Each structure stands twice: as C-alpha cells, then as structure tokens.
C-alpha cells in the first residue's frame, strides 16, 4: 500500500508506513487497507467494493466520532451522508453510547414473545411524540421490515392488496417493500409484481387519482420528501391532496419518515410539519442513534386490529430488540429538545444562505437547491453532475452521496447537532469542490 497519508488536520490515526503495519481491532486485524479491499471482494460483496473504488471513493470507514469519519488511511471526512439520517445525532453520540453502555449491564435484546420493559417505554414515548391519532407501535429490526409491517397492516385493515407508491421511490428491499421501489431491484430477484404495486409519478395528482379511483388500493406509501430520488420537494398542497384522495378512495396514507423524521425538517416529524395526520408512520435509521438497529411503525387503533386478532401475526426475533429501544428512547429525547429544534433552524439557515452564495458564483452549473430544514438536494447541470461533486467533495474531506435514482442531484444532509464552526468549514470545502467539479465536468482540469 506504500506510504499512507496518516496525518490529516493533525489527526493521527494509524501509523502505517509499510505494508506490514497492523490494523488491530481486538477481535480481528488487517495488515493494510488494501487487504481489506481485497478480502471484501473475495468474501463479501465484489460489486459494491469495486463500485466505490471506480467512483473515486475508496472509503473504508475506520474511526467515527461526532460528524467525522476517518478512512483507514487516516483521511478525515465530514459526514453529510449520515447513512440516510442514521447518524443524525452524529457518530457514537456520547449520550446514546452512555445510555446503551449502562443498559447493557442489565438488558440484552430481550425475548420477542413477551411484553417487555424497553419496548413498552419506547412505544409510549413514540406515541406521545407522534402526530395525533397514531396510538400503537409495532417494531421491526430495520426500515425494510418496518415498511413490510406497515403494508401488511394496511392490507389487513382494508382487506385490499394494492399498494401505490411513487415511481423511483425507495422504501427498502425486503419482501413487500421492494415492490414499492424501482424495478431494477425487484426484477433482479424475480420479485416484480406490477399489478399489486403500481407506481405513479411524483407531484402528479391526476396519476394518483387514476391509481386510486378503482377503490382497490390498500395504501399509498410515500416519503414526505423522496430521498433516493434526490429530495424533489412535494409541490405546495400535493401531500394534502394525496391524503384527501386516500380518504376519498378508502386507502391508507403511509408516511415513510425514515429519512424525513427526527427533526430533520426542523420539526420532529416532516409529515407533521406538513400538517398531515398519516394513517401509518414508519421511522428507522436515526431513531436509534446509529448504535443498535431498530425500526418502528406507528398505527392508529382503528387499523391495528391484527394486534388483537392475532398478536403473533408478525414475528421478528430482533424486531424491537430492547437495547435498540433504549438507544431509541435516548435518541428521540435528544431530537425532541427545544434546544435541538432551535439549532436545526439555525443550521438550516446558515447552510441555505451559504449554498445560495456559492450558487450565485456557478449559476449555470449549480442550478438548484432543494431544501427543507437540513434535508437538501443540490442539482447540477449535467446528467451525472452529482458524481463529479461527490468525488471532489471526497477529495476535499466531505462525504456526501449522489442520488442513486437521479445522479444530477447530490444529497446534502447536515447533522442536526452540527456546530457552527463545522458548518462554516463544510461550506468552505463545498465551494472549492463545486468549482473543481464544474471545471472537471466541463472538460477542463480540476
């Protein structure tokens, strides 16, 4: 691997001046980053591993702290990807870590067959925080499973099968969830079922009405702002109109708040900020502070009949693991603080103002800013524009990801506890990266 860059902004991680230097993590070790990449291809996922190498982002995340990541080389990155909001509160948030560490002296995952301490406590906290009407909580081990639970609940409640989702949506890759997304992922596994999972274009009310008119739809599932599609913003009034159509045609409205919840819009739940009371709300990713997987589905009593009819109707050993619940209680409390809300408004303002100033310098390259709170999609005037910017940002110490389903758009997701000086640093780095990406995309040198 030769000589690694070990000092980056004074942060010394691993001294690795030869191939034999050891990355010792206790229960496992590697000789070099190259070894990890080789073995990742050999034993894990060759396609994914190679993709990032080819994309100019050969990242193997080593140390993590606050909103910083360190590649094995020692290179420090400011994390604006947050794994879709998983690290909303930063990496290894000390309060979440402490809550978990203490809890681990007493709790484990728990036994999913029984009523449980932490599951009950989190359920109460979630119901208290949620939009009015949501009154029961069902747990999954991840977002996809939670989406499946939401869809199953809607089917049980309405006794209908069809699920309408937005074209280019992403709600996870589990059995039912995969049907709501792009067929790239369902066809691969012969799991596409277009009849049961119609897709309609975003912001198109006529198409939505057309899809619902037959009254054979169990639910419409939507992200409040579609993430993987680059956060196109719902037109003013669109979500309200969809909710109304659902009511009119007896379909449930499922709000996927996996990426838009937890204060990222400046309110705890993005859908509540819209003033909409969904029938079902799904949260995941950031809900447990990135420390222990868990996802939650909030439903109304009137749709929760299966929980009484057959409480064992959906079984998941890891769903609602108690350590995850404890992490989630803490994460939810941090997100709900008035101080946090105030800071998100400040961060959103400073980031928005800073980006608009950068935009003013590259008006025909950096063509759009989609922003709702600290959820941002940056649009570039090139079919693959966000990939150029992503690579330049990576070079410049910032990790932000392009939108899989619209690579013109860069997902730009500052954490909700980001400090002012880090916001300024991010803006400085972003300005340089956008300029370099511009010159690169336009054929010049960066």
């Amino acid at each position, binding site marked *: 691997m030769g000589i690694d860059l070990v000092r980056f902004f004074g942060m010394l991680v691993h001294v690795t001046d030869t191939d034999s230097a050891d990355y010792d993590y206790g229960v496992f070790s590697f000789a070099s980053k190259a070894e990890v990449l080789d073995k990742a291809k050999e034993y894990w996922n060759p396609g994914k591993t190679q993709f990032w190498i080819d994309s100019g982002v050969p990242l193997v995340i080593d140390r993590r702290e606050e909103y910083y990541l360190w590649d094995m080389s020692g290179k420090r990155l400011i994390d604006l990807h947050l794994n879709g909001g998983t690290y909303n509160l930063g990496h290894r948030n000390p*309060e979440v870590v*402490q809550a978990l560490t*203490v*809890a681990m*002296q*007493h709790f484990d995952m728990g036994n999913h067959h029984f009523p449980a301490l932490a599951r009950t406590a989190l359920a109460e906290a979630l119901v208290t925080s949620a939009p009015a009407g949501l009154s029961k909580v069902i747990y999954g081990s991840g977002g996809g499973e939670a989406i499946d639970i939401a869809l199953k609940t809607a089917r049980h409640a309405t006794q209908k099968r069809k699920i309408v989702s937005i074209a280019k949506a992403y709600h996870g890759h589990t059995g039912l969830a995969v049907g709501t997304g792009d067929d790239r992922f369902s066809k691969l596994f012969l799991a596409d079922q277009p009849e049961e999972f119609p897709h309609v274009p975003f912001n198109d009310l006529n198409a939505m009405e057309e899809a619902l008119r037959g009254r054979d739809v169990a639910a419409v599932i939507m992200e409040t702002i579609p993430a993987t599609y680059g956060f196109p*913003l719902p*037109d*003013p009034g669109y979500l309200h109109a969809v909710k109304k159509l659902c009511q009119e045609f007896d379909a449930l409205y499922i709000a996927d708040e996996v990426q838009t919840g937890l204060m990222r*819009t*400046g309110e705890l739940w993005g859908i509540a*900020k819209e*003033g909409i009371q969904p029938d079902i709300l799904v949260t995941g990713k950031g809900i447990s502070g990135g420390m222990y997987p868990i996802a939650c589905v909030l439903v109304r009593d009137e749709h929760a009949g299966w929980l009484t009819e057959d409480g064992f109707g959906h079984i998941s050993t890891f769903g609602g693991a108690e350590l995850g619940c404890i992490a989630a209680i803490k994460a939810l409390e*941090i997100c709900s*603080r008035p*101080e*946090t809300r*105030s*800071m*998100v*408004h*400040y*961060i*959103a*303002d400073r980031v*928005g*103002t800073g980006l*608009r100033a950068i*935009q*003013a310098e590259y*008006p025909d390259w950096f063509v759009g*800013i*989609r*922003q*709702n*709170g600290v959820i941002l999609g940056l649009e570039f005037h090139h079919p693959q524009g966000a990939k150029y910017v992503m690579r330049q940002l990576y070079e410049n110490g910032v990790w932000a990801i392009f939108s899989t389903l619209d690579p013109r758009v860069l997902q730009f997701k500052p954490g909700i*506890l980001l*400090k*002012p000086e880090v916001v300024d640093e991010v803006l400085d780095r972003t300005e340089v990266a956008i300029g370099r990406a511009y010159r690169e995309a336009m054929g010049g040198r960066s």
Partner: protein
Amino acid sequence: MTALLADIPLEPAGVPRGRAMVERAQWASLAFATYDIETVRRIAQAAAEAGERVAAELGIAAVEETGFGVAEHKKLKNVACSVGIWNTYRDHDYVSPVLHPDRGIVEVPRPAGVVIALTPSTNPVATVFFKIMLALLTRNAIIICPHPFAKRVCTEAAHAMAEAAVAAGAPDGCIQVVEEPSIPLVNALMTDARVDVIVATGGTAMVRAAYRSGNPAIGVGPGNVPVMVDATADIAAAAHRIVASKAFDNSILCTNESVLIVEEKAAAGLEAALRREGAYVLAGEEIDAVKGVMFDGTSFDTAWVGKSAKQIAEAAGIKVPANTRILVAPFPLVVPEEMLAHEKLCPVLGMVVVPSAARGIDAARAVLRISGAGHSAAIHSEDAVTIMAFASAVPVLRVAVNVGNSLGSAGIETHLAPTMTIGTGFFGRSSVGENLEPKHLINMTRIAYPSHGSSAMPDFSALQPWHEPAGAVPPYPIASNMEGAPSLVRADDPQDELRDEIRRMVVEELREILRG
C-alpha cells in the same frame, strides 16, 4: 422508586441538556453579533419594560421562595435593574464602530459570545435582570444559572425578559435559564469550552470555581463594609443614611454596612441620632444574646439572611420598640475572633468607637482583613483630607461618601455604574475592579493605521458593518419551493425591499398555519 441500575454511574439528566443550551446559545450569539444598534436598543428596551411589568410580582415571589428580604425593596431593585439599567445606558452604544481619526484608530465592538451568569439567592430577580440587560446591550447570548434557593423566581424572571426580547427581534435562544440547577450541571456549564465568559455573583466557593474553570471569568468576592463617621460629619444626616441603607431589603445587598466605626467625639451624638432613625442600640447581655442567635459557632447562620431586626430581636428574647429597623451591636475591637466584625447579611450593625480618624482607618483596614477586600466602604465626613487618607489606605475599590453604602456603592445613588455585581479587583482576587457594566462584556477589534502618517486613515464614518435582521432569527425553515422561501436574490438588495416585505408577510402567514 428503586433504581435498578444504581451502581452504574450515569451523568445526571440535566447535564446533557445544559450542554445543548450552550450550543444553542452559541448559535444565538453568532446571529446576535451582527445586529445593528437600533435593533439592539429596541430589544433592550422591550426586555427592560417586561422586567418592570413583573418587578413587583416577582419581588413578592422572591421573598416567598427564598425567605430573604423585603418585597417592596426588591421591587425597587427589580425596577432599577430593568428600566433603570435601560435608562442609564440607552444613549450608550456598545455596537457601532468608534472612530478616532486623530489617532488613526477605529474600534469595532465584538461581543464576548456566550455568557454564563451565576446569580445569587439574595438578590435573585434583580441580578437576573441586571445580567440579562448587560448581555442584550452588548449583543451577547446569556445562560442564567440561578442559585437553587431561587430557581423558580429566576426562571420566571428570565422567561419574562426572553419572551419580550425575542418578540422584539432578538435571536432565539439568546436568553436561557437553567430551571433545575445542580452542582454537576453548573460545573459542566462553567467548564464547557464553548463558553466565552462566566460572570459569577455568589459565594466565594462558586466564584473561585468560576476562576478555576479554564474559561475567562468575571467573579466578584464578598463584602464586609466598614462605614466610618468622623467628627466633621453631619451626624443627623449620617444616622439617617446609615439606618436606611442597613434596613434596605434587610441588609441583603453585599454593599450593606457591616461595621460602624465612629470617632469618639461624635459617638454620643451619633448613637442618639441612630435611635431617632429607628436603630435599637444593644447593651450588656443583649449583645451576647443576639450573637448567640446570629452566629452558629464561628459562622453567620444563613437562616438569618435578610430577616428583619424585629425577628432577630425576638429570637434573642429582646423587647424592642415597634419602629425598630436595625439593631446596633457595640463591640470593643476589630479582630477576627469577634464575630460582629464579620459580614452580616441582616440588619445587625456592629459598632466600634475609635479615638481618632486615623485609628478609624486602622479599624476599617482590620475589618477588611477579615473579609471583603476589594469591595466597598463608606465614610461620612466633611474633611477631604480624612476621606483621601481613608480611600488610599483601606483596600477597597469604591468609597461611598455621605450616602448609604447599599445603594451608594451599587451605583444607584452615586455616579458609579449601577450594578448588582461589584468587581473586587486585585484586592479581591477578581479580574474586574469596577462595578460590572456593559463594557465588560465586549472586546474591541482595533483597526490601527501607522503612527508616522505614511498611510492616512480614510473616512469610515459611513461604514456600518452591522444590520437589522430580515425577520425572525433564525427564520422558520420553510421548504425552498414554498412561496416566501429565500431565493437566489440577496435579501439586502435595496430594490427588493418590497419583495422582502411581502416575503416576510407570507412567512408569517405560513408560520401561523403551521402553528395552528
């Protein structure tokens, strides 16, 4: 409830919340630091008027919560520390650049940033108001950390000013208050590296902790005020002022007189005059009885802080006239083992008679050897020579002349800066030797041109680096495709004023809808 996880150390719940307050304050201070003078004045005036509105009600509440002082006097202090401070500083400007073309220097005021204010139980609301007013006048964000005895009333006081300030345009979070103070929380706040300055008014231990925190601190030490009356003094006037000052809020201000030193020639006359003003001069066994009540072994029993003279006399089994406002306790010599020579935050005044003004100065120095160095002293005299000798020998940083010290050294009845925080300077191990005032919460960035004149200073008079915020700070995060969201067009473009106005109205409307 049993704590099932009892043996595992958990950070007290308030501590992380306190850290979040500091972070929020930091954001607020960054925004506040760009405000212009007109907006700052509007905010300070609104907060002051809000303080005045609740001055009486919180005076009563403070006495109820702490058991200290006199509600009516507290009201006076609350008014003095809200609109009083506003009136004092309304024409001062701690915001705009100051030009010194003759010296080639421009001073640009820069606020400290995040101020942690420790406030005492004795003057709770007044100190909260005072520190908030100073913070607002200087564009600082402030976190009030009240003494636990007065947490409820301090929370109310801070909220009253905060609401008015934010309604007048102050940044959200620029005034916060710790509602449940605790030692670990206060420690966490004081040692937080994001804090820019600690302003500590309180007990010595707290003040020293502020200095040890590693953050810049302005801490003030305790008082123990000697007041000398020499033979040249207007005896009747002196007696009147001393009794009124000692009775004010039952001696709860740290500037209240502690030991009266009277020149022998004036002693008899002064004693008679004191009696006429409502002082009861203790004699014989009465003195020991009062000492027995007030001092619990070798320290002042804080149960008597701010209690009335009559309550103390009653506890000591002494019958005093109904109009008694203070008790005077004569003692022979100022020495450390004499408890009457120590600080007494209640209307009991020690008294020693000295043969000459020179011996009186020695006695005053002896009082300050016990405690109160750097604080204040008073003198009633017509003789400039004696006054100068007193002021240059006694280790205090303010000497109030021919005025009650409670309000005299506090700047309310003198031209000293009106304050609830008396800087005790080097004598008193503090970084500030003046009465705390707004200027202590800013620094100046100085633009400096060469003194040899090779580059002349241009005219800076039209340059104003600060501005009025365009609306609520921070603005509500409206989605960027909604009407009213900020656009590429810069808000400070003058041609866009109308559009900005419309935008503001739309934003307001949307906010109402979202709230509703």
